[in-house]
């Protein structure tokens, strides 16, 4: 009896202690119901930045309101941090982002309209045949070490680094047209001309690739590609970086943070003609996981955070009493999908990759459509993304400038599914179990990568949806690497739930997925030996559309081709798209000139952001 008392006492003590140190997020007097946080913030974007020439120097002038100099913005990256600061060597998103902070490209993307606009270049023009790109550079602008930025830097970057195949060659690989590369030539010190062998629309996006300072990179390039791979690595001293971006590296502490300081020679000025950026320092903390990031934001160590669906409601309730503002940036560029293995070929050993009886189902459009109509996307968005997402029906992401808006969403419709299945001769027994016309029970494996809680949860919900149709779904989350191996090498899978990140600006980036001989043509992978195997009609048409879409130069023409490809995917259902999460960002309200957009995110105009009262 005494023991029980002791235990109870200890528990009360512990609870009391914990209670004592917990501050309430929301003052007790002010509960959620009293203040309605649903007021959407209306962002008024400033005018586009303008070219201004002062004393012979071509500046870019910000049209945003004038701010105060000084202060620090602390953001974060999740994972292990950068692997290199050389923008031409990066193979992962974090390294590219962290190195591109320091190097501007010739062009950039208008964060509102998505159109290419000049950045390091003063202006650009494209010839009528769509093959010649003439770039005029700014006079008098300088690298962070005071040397001028000229056509030599541009020509060097393109000819000796990118087209020569140093570092990461993905840009070079993506602009090989019929086995030929574009060429670059210097017209005069401030004019450069690019010529592509054929009209090739995606090339314009490549011009936002960073430009390297020739006087720094040339010695490294001369030492060959092996040396170049280690050039400007994370061990390089910060003072050895010569940059053209708003910031330059100040300090990199492995596994902790990357600190940048302002570039005193930056070429963007404010309306008072003072050189930007306003901020003295830009800090990226390297955090290991999402949970830690949230804790750091709440402890005010971070100024900006991307919020996960499950956290949005709580933050929204906290917002009126806190020092941050929440922005809804709309759907992200990810496309979550379910795909069936349409492969009907045999592997090296003469066995089918996919069980022949399953091949019959997966290759039957009615079957794919039945599955599609059975998926309850709205429910998935509601339950998995806490309503912070949009059902997805198209191959291009919802914020893409090429999105085909004529493809209408629809709701779950089990009746329609049943009809479609009946049309193809599927039958149900008395217990409601589904059999095909040969009397085989419809049963397949559905895979996803274990550890991705979002996909695991989607899998469970889709399994239930499909079991309503009488299918037997064995849902198996497996380890990421094994899954990739199955998808890309052994090809022995039935159904998979995966996601790709796309580009909202350039559908051609998805050609490896959509074109029938692509390296990621997941639903019908063709390894080397199958490269010439027969294509489905819709695959042939998509191939044609991608080729035409890349060669067309006018946006309207391209849009037509890419609209048609999205329509084909929408109708043929090789991919059954599920939903796109919405990007919700919180940023401290002391930062001014914050104009978030769906395409640019929050900090695309980092040079204009300042700390106000």
């Amino acid at each position, binding site marked *: 009896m005494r023991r029980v008392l002791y235990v109870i006492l200890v528990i009360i003590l512990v609870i009391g202690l914990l209670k004592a140190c917990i501050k309430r997020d929301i003052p007790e007097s002010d509960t959620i119901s009293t203040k309605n946080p649903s007021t959407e913030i209306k962002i008024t974007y400033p005018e586009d930045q303008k070219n201004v020439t002062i004393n012979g120097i071509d500046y870019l002038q910000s049209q945003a309101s004038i701010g105060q100099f000084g202060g620090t913005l602390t953001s974060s990256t999740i994972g292990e941090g950068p692997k290199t600061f050389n923008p031409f060597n990066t193979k992962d998103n974090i390294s590219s982002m962290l190195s591109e902070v320091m190097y501007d490209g010739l062009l950039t993307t208008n964060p509102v309209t998505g159109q290419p606009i000049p950045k390091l270049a003063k202006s650009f023009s494209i010839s009528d045949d769509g093959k010649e790109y003439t770039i005029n550079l700014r006079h008098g602008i300088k690298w962070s070490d005071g040397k001028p930025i000229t056509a030599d830097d541009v020509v060097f970057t393109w000819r000796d680094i990118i087209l020569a195949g140093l570092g990461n060659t*993905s840009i070079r690989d993506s602009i090989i047209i019929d086995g030929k590369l574009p060429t670059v030539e210097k017209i005069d010190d401030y004019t450069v001309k690019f010529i592509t062998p054929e009209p090739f629309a995606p090339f314009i996006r490549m011009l936002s690739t960073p430009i390297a300072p020739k006087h720094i990179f040339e010695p490294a390039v001369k030492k060959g590609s092996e040396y170049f791979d280690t050039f400007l690595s994370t061990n390089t001293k910060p003072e050895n970086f010569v940059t053209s971006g708003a910031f330059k590296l100040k300090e990199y502490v*492995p*596994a902790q943070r990357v600190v940048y300081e302002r570039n005193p020679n930056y070429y963007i000025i404010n309306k008072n003609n003072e050189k930007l950026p306003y901020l003295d320092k830009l800090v990226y903390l390297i955090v290991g996981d999402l949970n830690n990031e949230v804790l750091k934001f709440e402890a005010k160590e971070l100024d900006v955070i991307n919020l996960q669906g499950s956290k949005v409601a709580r933050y929204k309730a906290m917002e009126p009493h806190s020092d941050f503002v929440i922005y809804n940036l709309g759907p992200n560029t990810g496309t979550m999908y379910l795909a069936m293995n349409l492969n009907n070929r045999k592997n090296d050993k003469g066995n089918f990759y996919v069980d022949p009886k399953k091949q019959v189902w997966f290759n039957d459009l009615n079957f794919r459509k039945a599955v599609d109509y059975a998926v309850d996307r709205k429910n998935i968005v509601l339950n998995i993304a806490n309503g912070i997402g949009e059902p997805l029906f198209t191959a291009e992401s919802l914020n893409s400038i090429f999105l085909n808006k004529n493809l209408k969403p629809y709701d779950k419709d089990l009746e329609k599914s049943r009809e479609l299945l009946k049309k193809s001769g599927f039958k149900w027994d008395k217990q409601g179990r589904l059999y095909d016309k040969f009397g085989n029970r419809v049963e397949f494996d559905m895979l996803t990568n274990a550890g991705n809680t979002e996909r695991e949860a989607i899998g469970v919900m889709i399994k239930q949806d499909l079991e309503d149709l009488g299918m037997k779904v064995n849902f198996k989350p497996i380890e990421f*690497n094994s899954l*990739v191996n199955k998808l890309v090498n052994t090809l022995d899978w039935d159904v998979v739930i995966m996601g790709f990140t796309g580009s909202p600006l350039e559908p051609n980036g998805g050609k490896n997925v959509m074109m029938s001989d692509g390296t990621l043509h997941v639903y019908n992978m063709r390894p080397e030996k199958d490269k010439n195997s027969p294509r489905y009609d819709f695959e042939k048409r998509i191939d044609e559309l991608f080729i035409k879409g890349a060669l067309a130069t006018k946006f309207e023409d391209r849009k037509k081709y890419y609209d048609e490809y999205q329509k084909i995917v929408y109708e043929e259902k090789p991919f059954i798209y599920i939903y796109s999460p919405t990007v919700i960002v919180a940023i401290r309200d002391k930062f001014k000139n914050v104009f978030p957009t769906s395409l640019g995110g929050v900090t695309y105009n980092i040079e204009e952001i300042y700390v106000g009262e």
Partner: protein
Amino acid sequence: MEIYKYIVKRILQTIPLLIIVSLISFFIIRLSPVDPLAELRLNPSVSQETLQKESQRLGLDKPIIIQYGKWAKSFIKGDLGITSNGEKVSTKLKERIPNTILLTIIVIFLTWITGIPLGILAALKWKTSFDRILTVLTSIGMAIPSFFFAVLLLIFAVKTGWFPIGGLTSANFADMTFVGQVKDIAHHLVLPVTVLFTLSLAGLQRQMRANMLDVLDSDYVKFARAKGLSEFKVIYKHALRNAVNPLITLLGFEFAGLLSGAALTEYVFQYPGLGRLILEAVLKSDINLVMASLMMGAIMLVMGNLIADILLIITDPRIRVKS
């Protein structure tokens, strides 16, 4: 002279051991289905050529036995190779080793300086309320999972704002004065040290208490008491010296744990130590990095045991006579 012979013999014995350890670990890592290029393969913008170039660079296109041979050859030459990102393994390790050593040394120092006296006290005050309270506290310390405790402390830090959320230094560390920097590091160390300290204190205190109780019960202590020696002399001259012996072996293990001790705690607190580096390397199957750390762990363990054995020879005459 005897003792030098012994040391040389022991060192020679470790060579086959290290070979076996390296073989087993290499094959386990390489035969596991983890593909270091999986991430790249699923990236739509990465071309086939890049993938081939990468797999050549990492030597993935050769049979495992040749890969092992290559690794072993350069390891013997003292070259630890490069990580899958092309950075030198040795520099990667050099970045992290001081941080981990700082953390573990502080923890070991604190646990030993408090654990041993507390163990002795608990044994002397056996079955009093002091002993009981200590037993309850150390049981809690042993029972609470380290990552859970760490997460609790993090939440505590967020809610009170008294401590930073993980890491080792603040963002403006470089601009601080020396005293400020020391303070900043100390501030960051409080929580991780608390977790590790609570955990290892419990074990050490109970070990010491048990040893001491054993010894206090032995005949020679009874004899010493019967002889009329003062209690102080009985305990500190006779009992303690004997009770400490098993702890010397334990110290050997602590030495091994210097570099590999606290991966979970490091991970939760985002501490820039070796544990976190290696955990990430294992997940990516970054073979050179994993192998380097495993070999380092093995060597440290062997050395720790060797040092403990030598210390035992010095402190305990009984062992000297036998050998």
